[in-house]
């Protein structure tokens, strides 16, 4: 890659610039807070709450 810009190079760079100036929103990354088993056990029965939480994968919208 040289210092000289070919026409294609500058056109591609202009597209790259535009995509950086107005970039789409990335997908959300959701992680659940993990709890130590001890903390979960200490709570005992969680009334009126969902069943035992299952491990979650990061989900994409």
């Amino acid at each position, binding site marked *: 890659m040289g210092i000289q810009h070919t026409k294609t*190079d500058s056109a591609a760079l*202009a597209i790259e*610039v*535009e995509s*950086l100036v*107005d970039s789409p929103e*990335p997908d959300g990354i959701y992680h659940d807070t993990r709890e130590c088993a001890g903390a979960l056990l200490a709570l005992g029965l969680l009334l009126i709450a969902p069943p035992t939480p299952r491990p979650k994968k990061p989900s994409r919208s």
Partner: protein
Amino acid sequence: MAGNADALRSVIADAASGVALALRGGGGPDAVSGILHPDNPFAPAAVRVLGADVLAPYALGHPPPTAEAGDAQSVRMALAAYPPGADASEVSVWSYGGLAEAARRFLPADGALPPVPDADMAWTGTDPWQRLAHRVSQLAALAVPGLADGLAANLAPRVDDLSRGFVRAVRRRDWLQAAGVGRWLARLPDVPETLGLDTGLVFVGRLGAADPRVDLHVAAAQRFFGRGR
């Protein structure tokens, strides 16, 4: 072209680090001037992407650069090389306008600077809050005292919506968006107390520290508007 894209991103990152450093008082704006020297073929493109932020340190009262300074030259080159086309997005027009406005304010007048384009502002009233926050974050460089006052006035009534966007961005771990919206919120009046903008900016700045642009937005919120400390 992947090589060019990587090289451009690297110049952007270096320049953003330089601006953040200058905003924190570490060295004057000259550091940025060195990074964005026109000898670097990616400097004008990087300036166009960072927009008004490349000149943000001058808003602290530093003397303006000479016309020959590296950043001054690169800004003029960027304005000439990357004007928004007929089909440019509103964000692109606004970001270009921010750079043009900053150039007129902080660079020596030499008659060669392009005018600030008229940009549509209807979206500030009509965008749903999610979209509004994302757009505003892309225009974070305009959150500088005295710059884009009209935009600031139009965003003020939507401070609750922008605050919701900040929460959404943090929950999505979109640190760049969160920092950008947070920087705008730092400028706006009547941010909801319960948002916790100050602790939020610190939180985002720490978790998003890998991206110098995140750090830059947090530094701007701190230095210009006294938030996030």
